[in-house]
């Protein structure tokens, strides 16, 4: 057992060293951390200094209009609204940061949901092997071929819209439930290559139960590829969430996500382009950094695994 821990840490240390040498991945990590930090501490800070919140609509009717970035109502330079305001006079920066909270939350929680389903499914199929494996993987193939987003759209359109929080919960489940397929395939492949190795045989010989072998010995060893794929799942889930919110089926007002902010912004693109540009750009930068980080992690943790 002691021996295993030592080998484990050196693998992670090695990976860390490789990751640090990849400048783009490091930059991605910094940018992602900065955006996460900004969306956590940003809203209370803005509220403290300027009094604006994501749903604060000014009481003066003259202020209920869309101001360009860095412009005060009289047209002079001002730091009050670095991203301008939307048609209701709300501060776009505050809304983009709230959108960041929600988009990142949806991305992370749905990825965790997909991680749990995918790992359990893939590990079981890979370990069981034979007929069970074949049937389980056929199910995955079948689900792959289905345009599942259509079913998700139906689900959200018919069950959503009750409450903002209920809608969020629905999003977590729906997006998690459709993005576990690749995870299941990766974990299965790993488990198949691991299950015939000596340490599994030793565990079986000492009478460890099947479920314990899967949970204690096989799953931890698949961690590398799983982390890599999870990092790459976060941006793709965020993109799906943005699609749905853009179509009006995702996050509901008064909450906002980057997708729903972009959908609002597109209405007035000719007159007030900043309403689309800022949420869109923030989202693109975040996804860009997450993808670079994911790519870097993949190269660092598993130089052999080169997909996409």
């Amino acid at each position, binding site marked *: 057992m002691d021996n295993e821990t030592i080998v484990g840490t050196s693998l992670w240390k090695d990976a860390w060293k490789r990751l640090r040498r990849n400048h783009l991945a490091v930059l991605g990590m910094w940018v992602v951390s900065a955006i996460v930090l900004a969306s956590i501490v940003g809203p209370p800070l803005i509220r403290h200094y300027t009094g604006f919140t994501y749903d604060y609509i000014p009481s003066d009717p003259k202020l209920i209009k869309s101001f360009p970035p860095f412009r005060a109502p009289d047209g002079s330079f001002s730091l009050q609204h670095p991203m301008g305001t939307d048609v209701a006079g709300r501060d776009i920066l505050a809304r983009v940061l709230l959108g960041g909270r929600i988009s990142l939350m949806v991305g992370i929680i749905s990825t965790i949901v997909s991680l749990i389903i995918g790992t359990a499914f893939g590990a079981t199929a890979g370990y069981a092997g034979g007929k069970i494996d074949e049937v389980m993987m056929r199910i995955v193939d079948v689900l792959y071929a289905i345009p599942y987003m259509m079913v998700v759209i139906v689900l959200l359109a018919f069950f959503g819209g009750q409450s903002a929080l209920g809608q969020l919960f629905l999003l977590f489940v729906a997006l998690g439930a459709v993005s576990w397929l690749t995870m299941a395939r990766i974990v299965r492949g790993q488990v198949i290559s691991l299950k015939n190795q000596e340490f599994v045989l030793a565990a079986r010989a000492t009478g460890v139960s099947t479920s314990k072998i899967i949970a204690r010995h096989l799953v931890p060893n698949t961690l590398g590829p799983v982390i890599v794929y999870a990092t790459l799942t976060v941006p793709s889930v965020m993109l799906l969430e943005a699609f749905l919110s853009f179509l009006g089926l995702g996050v509901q007002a008064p909450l906002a996500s980057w997708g729903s902010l972009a959908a609002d912004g597109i209405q007035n693109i000719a007159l007030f382009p900043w309403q689309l540009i800022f949420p869109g750009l923030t989202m*693109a930068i975040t996804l860009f950094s997450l993808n670079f980080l994911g790519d870097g992690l993949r190269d660092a943790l598993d130089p052999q695994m080169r997909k996409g």
Partner: protein
Amino acid sequence: MLRFIVRRLLVTVPMVLVVVSLTWGLIRLAPGNFYTGEKPIPPAIVENLKAKYGLDKPWYVQYGRMISNTLHGDFGSSLKYQGQSVNTILKAALPVSATIGLLAYLLALTVGIVFGVLSALRQNSTLDYTSMAFAMIGISLPNFVLGPVLVLLLSLTWYMLPPALWGGGRHLILPVVTLSALYMAYIARLARSGMLEVLRSNYIRTARAKGLSEWQIITRHALRGGLLPVVSFSGPALAFLITGTVVVERIFALPGLGNYFINANLNRDEPLIIGIVAFISIVVLIFNLLVDIAYGFIDPRVRY
């Protein structure tokens, strides 16, 4: 080979039925109905509406009718588009979506493969770095940002292209580019990594040792293996492309299947939803089958 195709085609039918049943079940479990709109309808009229669309029968009769409709390829009449059958709507909307989708698909494949392969052949060159940087942007830039930004620049600032609506020709350019960007980027990355892997393999070294020209090595040997990841992605890509089409049709206000699908969902127009879901599932499943067959021709290791 023939047995494989027949078996897969036979599996397609129950799979479509599963998807359709799932959708139908979701619609039926949900609260509310297509006639629960803003304005309340008198109960007598509700009864008449129910009788007209067969909604007064027990659920298993309705389910049976829906399945039988699906098997016959006739989905009945739309609940919201007055006097139009679902099939008429499908027939009208399909050309729009199919044109955009196919053009985007072809554009993504050509540009993606060309740049992916060139990047692999000139690894670490300026071309490689620029095309991979563009590919990364393509993967990270949501199409609902890319589309409007293109509209803003090309249509509203420089007046080069029409900003929206369906009109063929020049109206196609912006939607097709917007839709294909993500897949183009993805395919370029897949083609590059696939080619890089193949170029390092033993059989390419053998081909070199045999004294073949670089051009022959690439066209005869490397491309076949190197593009396998692209081929296997091109199946699921179609399913993803359909998701993208929904958004693009929304941005450019195109009367395609995606736009009808969203409206049908908002209107709770059950026959139209079922019709579109069934139709798209069939298309996607058949396309996946074609991809699998193509895979067998390209990869000599695959046996059916």
